[in-house]
């Protein structure tokens, strides 16, 4: 009788014990869910997968004595595809964390799925602030940048330079709209005004109509609240239609890959805010060179972010001695981040990783001395200025 009872008790306690310590299924599996072929595949995509693999290799391929496995899939920038893949990963393939999730719509679709199954999302690609605002979850880290940081960096810098009146060309989905709203409020707060906005379907190849509307608005600054190929086409066509130099462009989310494909001739003088630039210091150059050897391209801030967030996640597992999501999240939020990517980084209870950002200007062709020498870093925006304060967060988790 006593033996049966003891056996029953130990059986009942067994799952609890397993959950409390150790790696749940003998392997730490990280899924890189990203845009492998579409509009964002150069700025994230295969480069993000390579960055995650580099992080796993630099960890020796093992964490807490168990192997690290990186898997990847293409979400095609579609929310339904993203949540389906994530569900399959969680239910059937024991994936512990999903990284990247470029484009906000896919991130917002996967986050609640992950949270309901107690798995971790490590966002590097998306930007919109509902991710750490009213849509936040306890199992999410928003790592690289958000629309607030982009808006504040570029928006206030341009207004300070005298660009008081703005018109927006906005990608017509959640990311573009929040980026436009955030920038508009920064512009107004700094004493500028917003003359109008036009919402272009995403993705669009031909921006001429929208540029004409921007032109006829007479605004000094045309803010581009879009990303990737959309930004590239709008900048290129803005030059064609003679918007510049009468009006100036402000790229609200511009990646190194965009500048590379546009060429400095068309892109020179553009202000932008970035979380990472490869040629900033020895550490960043060293990592970027390794990335370049692997992919034949220099890393964007999304790529560097994926490496850094995966490393931070693995360190947290090491420290916690388990891949249990609650324990790992606690460690991730406790430890500061200081590596080649992030300076003065801290992950708040709302999941937002606040770290230094950089205001940059694209060099003129004559100032570029070597391949991929594109940015001049104008100033460092300290973490507490770059990101919204925790007290202003709409995330319920921040209120505790």
């Amino acid at each position: 009788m006593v033996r049966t009872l003891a056996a029953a008790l130990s059986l009942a306690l067994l799952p609890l014990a397993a959950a409390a310590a150790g790696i749940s299924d003998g392997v730490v599996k990280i899924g890189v869910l990203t845009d492998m072929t579409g509009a964002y595949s150069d700025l994230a995509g295969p480069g993000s997968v390579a960055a995650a693999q580099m992080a796993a290799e630099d960890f020796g391929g093992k964490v807490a004595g168990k192997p690290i496995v990186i898997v990847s899939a293409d979400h095609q920038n579609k929310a339904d595809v993203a949540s389906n893949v994530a569900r399959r990963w969680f239910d059937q393939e024991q994936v512990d964390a999903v990284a990247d999730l470029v484009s906000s719509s896919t991130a917002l679709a996967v986050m609640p799925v992950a949270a309901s199954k107690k798995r971790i999302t490590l966002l590097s690609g998306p930007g919109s602030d509902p991710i750490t605002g009213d849509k936040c979850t306890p199992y999410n880290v928003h790592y690289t940048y958000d629309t607030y940081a982009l808006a504040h960096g570029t928006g206030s810098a341009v207004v300070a330079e005298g660009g008081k009146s703005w018109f927006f060309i906005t990608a017509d989905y959640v990311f573009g709209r929040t980026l436009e709203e955030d920038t508009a409020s920064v512009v107004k707060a700094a004493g500028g005004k917003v003359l109008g906005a036009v919402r272009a379907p995403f993705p669009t190849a031909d921006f001429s109509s929208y540029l004409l509307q921007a032109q006829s608005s007479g605004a000094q600054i045309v803010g581009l609240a879009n990303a990737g190929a959309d930004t590239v086409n709008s900048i290129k066509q803005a030059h064609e239609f003679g918007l510049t130099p009468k009006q100036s462009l402000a790229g609200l989310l511009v990646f190194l890959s965009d500048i590379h494909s546009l060429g400095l001739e068309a892109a020179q003088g553009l202000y932008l805010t970035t979380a990472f630039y490869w040629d900033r210091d020895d550490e960043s150059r060293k990592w970027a060179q390794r990335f370049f050897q692997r992919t034949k391209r220099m890393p964007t801030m999304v790529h560097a972010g994926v490496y850094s967030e995966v490393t931070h996640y693995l360190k947290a597992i090491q420290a916690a001695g388990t891949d249990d999501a609650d324990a790992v999240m606690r460690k991730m939020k406790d430890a500061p981040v200081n590596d080649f990517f992030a300076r003065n980084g801290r992950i708040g209870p709302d999941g937002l990783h606040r770290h230094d950002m950089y205001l940059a200007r694209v060099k003129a062709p004559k100032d570029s001395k070597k391949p991929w020498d594109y940015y001049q870093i104008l100033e460092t925006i300290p973490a507490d200025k770059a990101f919204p304060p925790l007290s202003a967060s709409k995330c319920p988790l921040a209120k505790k």
Partner: protein
Amino acid sequence: MTQALFGQLLVGLINGSFYALLSLGLAIIFGLLDVVNFAHGAQYMLGAYLAWMGLTWLGVGYWVALLAAPAAVGLLGMAVERLLLRRLRGLDNLYGLLLTFGLALVVEGLFRQAFGISGNAYPVPPQLAGARNLGFMVLPVYRAWVVVASLAVCLGSWLVIEKTRLGAYLRAGTENPALLQAFGVNVPLMFTVTYGFGAALAAFAGVMAAPVYQVTPLMGSQVIIVVFAVVVIGGMGSILGAIVTGLGLGLLEGLAKFLWPEVSGTVVFVAMALVLLLRPAGLFGRQR
């Protein structure tokens, strides 16, 4: 307000001339060969890439590319017709559609692998650089050239097909190839050349587009769906229908971008649905 509207309409006309040029090639190929050429977008992209490669690697300028790239893609198209499409003649045209769609995916995939997605910049040729202020809008000189050149090519092709003996052979070949062959006309060669010509038209549009858009592997698939809608609205196979509808839809889209930008991506398909409801054969099509 009216000034802005004129600007939009002019831009619409410019885009429309791209649509017209692309749908013309599709309509010719469908009209004469009964092939739904889904590789048209890839052929358009190839034209742009050949121009870019010529300039970047060999220093070959825009004007040479404008002739050389379509010629190269045309030859490639002839090889495709000769080796692949010819085997499908007489079968349901669904087979041709699948074959060309597959080809397009392969070509696009290869280019994506080689060049990435953000693409490469192609500069406007120096002779056509700059812009003119028309009072109501600033018109880039290059865009004006696009309208003129595409209209000239469209008109020329239409004249050849409708008004010449060669065109008469082509039209006869679609009705009754066996009879035409009995008159001593080399019908298989005619089909090969026709497909090559359609492909060359797509490549021509690609070279024209290179300085306007980024040269990217996706440029073809972005435009091909709209172009198919143009061909369906105009009436499958109708040459005149393709040209007129291409321009008309460009204008309609320009108007939508001005009045209600959010729907500008779908307005073409709404038009297609309406036309198919009212005239199932398309605006200029004949019931077969």
